[in-house]
């Protein structure tokens, strides 16, 4: 039982970056932008979050962990949103091909992350890491409540970024389905010409949704650096996460509610082998690491075969809008 609770906790922790990426990309795709640059934006968010916390600590006499964490979140969000802004400018204003622009953003973001990661490391003397206080915040839990047996462990033993992810997911679900602005955003993604004719500022909605969505993905990148890698920059640390998030969007059929489930299923898959005593040797465990990717392929196939009208990709996704198109 104890083992099981531990597995659930590990699942939640491992699933959170997927949740950020998936929810961010859902918001993006709802505006009709198929941004394949999630991976790149995660890299940008990851390095910016780390750099923000690192420099705050460096220039403050008595750094406070909580503030460092907050700075990390804000920096990650802004930097990734900046990446998304490049994407927006190219696809929305300059009407470049969305697929290729997304790929370019991934190439750029990956380089950006590794480049500044290395620059930061060399400036810091070969190794960049945040202070123990900041690390503690990212390994924290909900005080008092987390000491309740079982339930406390299951529900309250996570760091703030986990709760933030869940709140963001719920907020976006409510926004999309319950509000006027959410309705407008869905309309933009389904049929921009109609939304435009209805007096909605298509360009503004696309820019905002894509940049905010990108920023959310960036927080996911920061999470990987701060929590998964314990506040140390590791080259190529995000490799693959962003792409799985893109696939998860399809799996959860563009619903932030289902993203909560989907992300944690994938979190569970990626940690499962530490809790099942399969007796894998080193080589076999390399094969096991392929499981999330293989599962993604299976997910793609299943969702691809059973298609429905209600749970489909926003109709204009991948196409750029030009009002005076004839």
């Amino acid at each position: 039982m104890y083992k099981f609770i531990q597995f659930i906790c590990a699942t939640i922790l491992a699933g959170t970056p997927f949740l950020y990426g998936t929810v961010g990309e859902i918001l993006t795709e709802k505006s009709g932008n198929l941004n394949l640059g999630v991976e790149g934006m995660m890299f940008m968010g990851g390095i910016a979050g780390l750099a923000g916390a690192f420099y705050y600590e460096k220039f403050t006499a008595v750094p406070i962990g909580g503030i460092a964490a907050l700075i990390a979140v804000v920096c990650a969000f802004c930097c990734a949103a900046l990446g998304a802004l490049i994407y927006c400018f190219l696809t929305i204003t300059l009407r470049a091909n969305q697929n290729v622009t997304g790929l370019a953003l991934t190439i750029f973001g990956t380089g950006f992350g590794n480049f500044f990661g290395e620059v930061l490391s060399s400036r810091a003397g070969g190794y960049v890491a945040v202070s123990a206080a900041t690390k503690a915040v990212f390994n924290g839990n909900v005080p008092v409540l987390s000491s309740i047996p079982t339930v406390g462990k299951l529900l309250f033993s996570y760091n703030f970024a986990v709760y933030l992810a869940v709140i963001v997911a719920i907020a976006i679900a409510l926004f999309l389905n319950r509000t006027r602005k959410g309705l407008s955003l869905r309309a933009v993604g389904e049929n921009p010409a109609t939304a435009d004719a209805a007096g909605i500022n298509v360009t503004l909605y696309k820019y905002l949704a894509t940049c905010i969505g990108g920023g959310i993905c960036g927080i996911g990148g920061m999470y990987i650096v701060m929590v998964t890698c314990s506040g140390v920059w590791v080259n190529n640390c995000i490799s693959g996460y962003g792409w799985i998030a893109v696939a998860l969007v399809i799996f959860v059929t563009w619903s932030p509610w289902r993203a909560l489930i989907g992300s944690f299923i994938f979190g569970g898959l990626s940690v499962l082998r530490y809790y099942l005593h399969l007796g894998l040797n080193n080589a076999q465990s390399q094969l096991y690491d392929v499981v999330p990717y293989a599962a993604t392929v299976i997910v793609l196939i299943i969702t691809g075969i059973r298609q429905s009208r209600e749970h489909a990709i926003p109709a204009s996704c991948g196409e750029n809008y030009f009002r005076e198109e004839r």
Partner: protein
Amino acid sequence: MADELNAIKLVDITKSFGNVVANNRISLDVRKGEILALLGENGSGKTTLMNILSGIYFPDGGRIYVSGREVTIRSPKEAFELGIGMIHQHFKLIDVLTAAENIVLGLPGSVGINRKALFAEIKELASRYGFEIDTGKKIYDMSVSEKQTVEIIKVLYRGADILILDEPTAVLTPQETEKLFNVLRNMKADGKAIIIITHKLNEVLAVSDRVSILRKGESVGTVDTAKTTQQELTDLMVGRRVSLEIDRPQPDENAVECLKIVDLTCKSPEGHRVLDSVSFSLYSGEILGIAGIAGSGQRELCESIAGLYPVHGGAILCRVQSQDGDYRENIVGMKPTEIIKRGVAMAFVPEDRLGMGLVASMDMTDNMMLKSYRSGKGIFTDRKTPRAMAENLIKRLDIVTPGVSTPVRLLSGGNVQKVLVGREIASSPSVLVVAYPVRGLDINSSYTIYDLLNEQKKKGVAVLFIGEDLDVLMELCDRVMVLCGGRVTGIVDPKSTTKEQIGLLMAGAGSGKAASS
């Protein structure tokens, strides 16, 4: 002051797309409590002008006055603020949303949406003008006329008092059209200014107070409806005297059955029956017209005959000529290549010219070889023959193009259609299926297409003509078959049938076993 009565006044509006001048110094005005018909051929700039008024396009020059004040309309939102609402020909509705959601889309208001209050408000508005609407229904479950209702209410809900309707009757049965006109008259009595874009003369005469006529992007005059005639309007519209008659040569005396369809049934991907036990025969040397409101199974019928749509049941029997005499081949389940291999000479001009019949970004040469590129030995294509064919077509059909290597998407609609029909006819078919061949074409191009079809008919080709304009169907075709909801509701002789009778069949009256001629 006359300006106070004018809901809208346009002065010298100019707009060009690339090298094409769509509107050249156009001026017109609409009064409050008036229905103005905007008449013009396809491509005369009517829709462009109205898109300028509704903020979709921005004019290159000219002035717009609303209730006497000069305004600039930079977006649809600003058009709404001025009380201008447009009902587009291709409905601007979002399929996955409900009627109510479409109606409130983009309007300011509380953060959340109070559905109950909204539903009640919409119902009240609808009943005021005599509409019926199911507020919670999703658009993709709606019929065309239901969608149109949503569009009109959407505009009214926004408080529009200047309504622009772009070809509103193109997709309606004559009865639905009459209902719509009654609603329009109600609105007119309510003091609203209405502009109705159309190219159907009888509707102009039936509903409008005045008519403004556009020709080739220029305005050629405005006349009072009460003081004009169909012939005068046509002459103004085309710019010279034209005969309104479409030629109908006598059908072949010794006709043979080229195509026999027996109990053809097709299902949509969602499992609905889009064609339900359709049976008919098509003879050599005749033009069989297919009438019906949009989405009654016309596309599925053409595509299943061409081997492009899966057939659920029934048979499609084609006559094949061979040395050992003629025989019939059931082509159900065959791919297009297989149909050709079996010796069935069929040509198909699809509705979607640039998205299906032609490759938009390729030049004429490459489009000529679309169906014949496999011929010839070796792995490389032969481009000499299709090039010669393209040059020949340009000469024979007067296709206006900079050259054979210009991408076809840069040609005008009429010329695109000439390329497509020309290629299909060049394959010397015995069965020719044409879907909406004159949609979007100007009168000259339309008559060229009618002439080409009649020429084929005289050669003994069996022509299946899917049309939307009942007047054209009734003048061009030897027989007219009516489809409604995927069923045949009648096959009639247009010479002895009225438009209203066909309209009733389009709406579903009559049975599948209606008298055939």
